């Protein structure tokens, strides 16, 4: 009888162990997310990623998202990265290059999926645990369209020198403009006080690089440009209705979905090193006729035909 009781106890313990193991297997996974800045571009990307994750994990695994929206500066990015590492999340997702580099600098073994990086091939992202997706927009088209609607001898470029991808865009468009005899002027926005610099600028047009800082204060920037009668173009699809003359952008939803797919594969056991990074190149072009009218600019009809969307 004792032997039977002992066997039953062993079986019971084994069953309890299996149940406990199974329960642990279904325990929620935690994904830490860091936005380089709390701006509409990254928010749209994040919504798209969450929506895709919910579809993929529905009924399979519970996912907890820990979202970090630091103010765009190196200390805040670094603090956010350290917090998520301290939480021991299963995966980190970053939007934008600054947040991505901040996580990489911490040399954690937590897998990292990035999205919203401009030309990730040139971002020098190192690490066995890193993969993700970025985008590329042909900046030459911005110059081409500006030249189609007005004489362009000078181009102001809004850049944030603390964001590497913003700086890369600045350097690329500067080179392109100078090749076409267009003088360029760097307008570095590293602090809120820098926005005031725009009031003294006399450029024929302004290009706003994909900087989180610049987009945090985009409304203020656009008011200044509007008062100075200077048209502006952007590669983020933030505010076509509020003062940009044109946007040429890669839709953020696609990157959010791709980041979710990569996150899903990693959570299911794939190694980031085995998942190829990807650069999305499909773009949309928006012309704002309301803004054009205010600026006294007429878009030729054949040019309007190129737009994916025209704001009237």
């Amino acid at each position, binding site marked *: 009888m004792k032997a039977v009781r002992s066997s039953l106890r062993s079986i019971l313990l084994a069953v309890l162990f299996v149940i406990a193991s199974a329960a642990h297997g279904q325990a929620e996974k935690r994904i830490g997310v860091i936005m380089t800045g709390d701006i509409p571009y990254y928010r749209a990307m994040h919504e798209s990623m969450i929506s895709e994750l919910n579809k993929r994990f529905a009924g399979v695994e519970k996912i907890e998202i820990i979202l970090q929206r630091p103010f765009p500066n190196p200390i805040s990015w670094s603090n956010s990265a350290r917090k998520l590492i301290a939480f021991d999340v299963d995966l980190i997702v970053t939007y934008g290059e600054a947040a991505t580099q901040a996580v990489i600098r911490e040399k954690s073994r937590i897998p990292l999926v990035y999205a919203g990086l401009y030309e990730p091939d040139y971002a020098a992202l190192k690490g066995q645990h890193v993969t993700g997706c970025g985008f590329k*927009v042909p900046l030459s*088209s911005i110059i*081409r369209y500006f030249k189609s609607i007005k004489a362009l001898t000078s181009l102001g470029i809004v850049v944030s020198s603390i964001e590497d991808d913003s700086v890369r865009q600045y350097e690329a468009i500067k080179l392109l403009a100078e090749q076409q005899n267009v003088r360029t002027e760097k307008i570095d926005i590293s602090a809120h006080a820098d926005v005031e610099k725009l009031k003294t600028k006399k450029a024929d047009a302004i290009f706003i690089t994909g900087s989180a800082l610049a987009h945090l204060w985009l409304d203020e920037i656009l008011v200044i440009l509007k008062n100075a009668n200077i048209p502006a173009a952007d590669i983020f699809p933030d505010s076509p209705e509020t003062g940009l003359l044109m946007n040429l952008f890669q839709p953020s939803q696609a990157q959010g979905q791709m980041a979710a797919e990569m996150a899903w594969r990693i959570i299911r056991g794939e190694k980031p090193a085995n998942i190829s990074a990807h650069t999305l190149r*499909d773009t949309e072009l928006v012309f704002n006729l309301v803004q054009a009218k205010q600026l006294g600019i007429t878009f030729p009809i054949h040019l309007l035909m*190129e737009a994916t969307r025209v704001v009237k």
Partner: protein
Amino acid sequence: MSHVPPSALGLARQLIAGLLICLFTTTAMPVAAAEQADALLIGIEPEHNIFDQMERYRFLADYLSDQLGVKINLTTMSRYGEVIKRFKALSLDGAFLTSYTATMAIKELHLAPVANPVNLNGESTSRGYMFVRKDSGIRNIQDMRGKSIVFVDPATMEGYLFPLAYLQRHGLLDIAHFFNRFDFSGSHESTIFAVLDGRADIGAAKNTAFDKLVQNDPSIQKELEIIAQSPKVPEITLCLRQEIDPGLRGKLATLLLHMDQTPAGREVLSKFKALRFVKANKADFVRIEEMAREARAVVADH
């Protein structure tokens, strides 16, 4: 019930019969004999900048009207493929047609090819280009899988038939599944801009439109890579209905072919942005028919 006298009924019958005879004879006239027209309606296939195009053609039409004593009226067809429908309705006497629509019009409507303008680079022909952005990483057909492609219009040789024939020659029969997306931009220039902007990965358009854009903005050449090109075909051909009086057709052809020999003609040619006109040759369209056969599975839909 009112009573109608027999004499009135007879008169009515005669009137109806007379009207019917008039109707039949007037509708049959255009196909029954050569027409002595006092005006010709000539169609133009739309280009990217339609206002600039109409202005150029208006200089030519005014000159021809003055010289011929026959008013030349112009009409723009809403899109490339409309030419066959317009001719079938007999509302056009002729048209300046791009290579594939000219081929269709010669074959299906028996139009006579009359003359080709020679552009400012000395060419009366064009060829199709397939191109990508240099930074796209696309170098061959395999690289195109899952990408997006933009054509011009189903009725263009350079912007549709050629790329289709090229893809089919490389074993690609199902473009709908091979590409992530395919679109028609409506003009050669729009196709080029779509690839430049990244709105499409691969484009197909004619070399003359490509070269013109590069001439205006040399940076375009640095950004795009031509990965395939078609043989040369007549770019624009003036085609006329056979029913037009042969005397008038001959006079029109002679006038066009000798325009560059008079100061007034040269001035109009300069505004039309051409050096001269050369005689069109029906045999030049054989290559386009061959290309259409290669792409027959898709062409049959149009």
